[in-house]
């Protein structure tokens, strides 16, 4: 089959990253990977 002149574009860089991976690579250090706790919750936790 002919291949396209231009390369295909992998929208996610071709990697199956879960939410935790995406956030860790973004340098976020959130609770359980993607939870933002407010000050009251942080105190409790």
């Amino acid at each position, binding site marked *: 089959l*002919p291949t396209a002149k231009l390369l*295909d574009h992998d929208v996610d860089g071709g990697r199956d990253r879960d939410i935790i991976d995406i956030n860790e690579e973004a340098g976020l250090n959130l609770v359980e990977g993607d939870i933002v*706790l407010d000050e009251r919750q942080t105190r409790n936790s």
Partner: protein
Amino acid sequence: IIGDEYRWPKTIPYYMEDDLEINAKGVILKAFEQYRLKSCIDFKPWSGEANYISIFKGGGCFSSVGNRHVGKQSLSIGTNCDRIATIEHEFLHALGFWHEQSRADRDDYVRIMWDRISEGKEHNFNTYNDTTSSSLGVPYDYGSMMHYSKNAFQNGTEPTIVTKIPAFSDVIGQRMEFSDSDLLKLHRLYNCTQGSTFLDSCDFERENICGMIQGHGDQADWVRLARATGGPDTDYSNMGKCTGSGYFMHFNTGTAKTGDTALLESRLLYPKRGYQCLQFFYYNSAEPSDTLKIYVREYDKAHPNGTLRFIKTIEGSPQNLWQLHHVSLDVKLKFRIVFEGTKGGSGASAGGLSLDDINLSETTCPEFIWRVKNFSHVMENTPLNTPIFSPPFTSKEGYTFQMSLYPSGKEGYPGELSAYAHLVAREGDTGKTWPCPWKQMTMMLMDQHPHIQKRMSNQRSVTTDPNMKATGSDQLFWDDPQKVGVEVTDTDGSKYYRGPGAGTPVYLTHLRAKSRDFIKGGDAIFLLTMEDVSHLTVSQPLPSTTPPPVSSTTPDVCLNVKCQNGGVCVLDTDKAACRCVVGDDWWYYGDSCQYKGSVMDKNTLALASSLSVLGVMLVVTAVSVICVKKKYKKRSSSDLVMGNVYA
């Protein structure tokens, strides 16, 4: 999360910030449609409510848990977060969901391998006790979209979560759609009774056929069968898997007389939105001249018995196959759906028209269907890095596109389905704008579950950004395929140009593709849609009640005053003053609204001051008691001495 204070109203105000990617905005709106179809949660553009969700492009995908009553509550959909399940996941957090494996009872169902967790990340495997988190009476759900995957926070290659039932080890962490239990919890948390845009679903397994009725004024009836002479041998819901069940509706054209009709009508339905999608599976074993037509019977005061309105004749030549069909409707009155079978010719061959798995919802229909037959065989026997292509489909938007699928994955991705969307142009195509501006193409692998609200279809969307450059080239990626694509010869010998594809090599694993009803009767069905999303390139309007933006109305003295936290500078007795934003139970204050107060803080302050007053009083009391004691002691000791003198 336990606590009514964390609940949102059932219709949640949202504001999409300008920094969001256009594709993400489109997928967010699709996620909202899934909430409306499968629950009573609805979303509406923020119109000045005290608390709303501000969706912005942060560094990743994250949210708070529950309604925090902070006014503008942020939820981030950053790069690579534009997958529908990721967005649904973050909104479930905002609605008050923790992660599934943080349930108080999780240790009954999964084992946490603590030595395999990255150092310092162990706290991410905490559980919340049952005073903080409630499972709402729903059993532990390995299939929840709120469950970590088995590799979460791993320090090596071994799984950090091991399910106590091994069969679920690759189920946890699914990011396709809501699971049944996710929706059950959501319904319980928000007292949902039904999906806002759901109207009806029928698999004819019950004898009451979902309240459908035989129409009047016809000459024949539809009958409920498990198999029909001339076909089909099974229904579509169960496909013969379960004895004693598996029914469908059949109009036997073989025994009908020429011109006979048979009407099958739905129960009365009450639309809210004014547009609907009728979806059903259709088996045609009749003569080519026999037809299936779709009508709606609409009721209003002037026509209490209803008015029949023709919608369309189903194009579906006789074939030994349950065909999937979609019909777009635009009904605004109380109505019934009407299926009319007609015996067209004189042939008496055994067979007829059959219907199964009918679904009706107030949603837009997918535009195109690409059925891949013998899908398991295709997955197993197509060489790696070898694509198959859907037919080119010309969208209502005027552009033609097609999907490429790598059944065995792209190079380096064995065990995966890889999927890409391509623009297509035919020789001499004119009248289109190139590069293609802001069209969102969605590729959905359909979960062929009979009930639309239980489908966990897997979808990915890409949007044609007209400014996007191709990798390593200054050519525009979404330019005319006659310029940036390659020439392809179609199966019928005609030629067209296919542009480069945008998509992902990790569309879905083979394991998941073999699960649920993605493959049914051996076939997989891809639903393809192209939608115009150019309206999402402009800012979402701010609510009119928001104080006017500081612009021409700003008095001169305000030009050098900066009000923070959304405060507005106004002229107050010839001096600049900041008017601060307030909410139900919070407010900003200070000369530039730099401080934040809340009812909670006020209560804390009141408590603190009363405690300190109490404390001071206690100290004063203690001191005075001590003084008085000392005084009496002194006096009594001086009396004692006097006594001795006389003795």
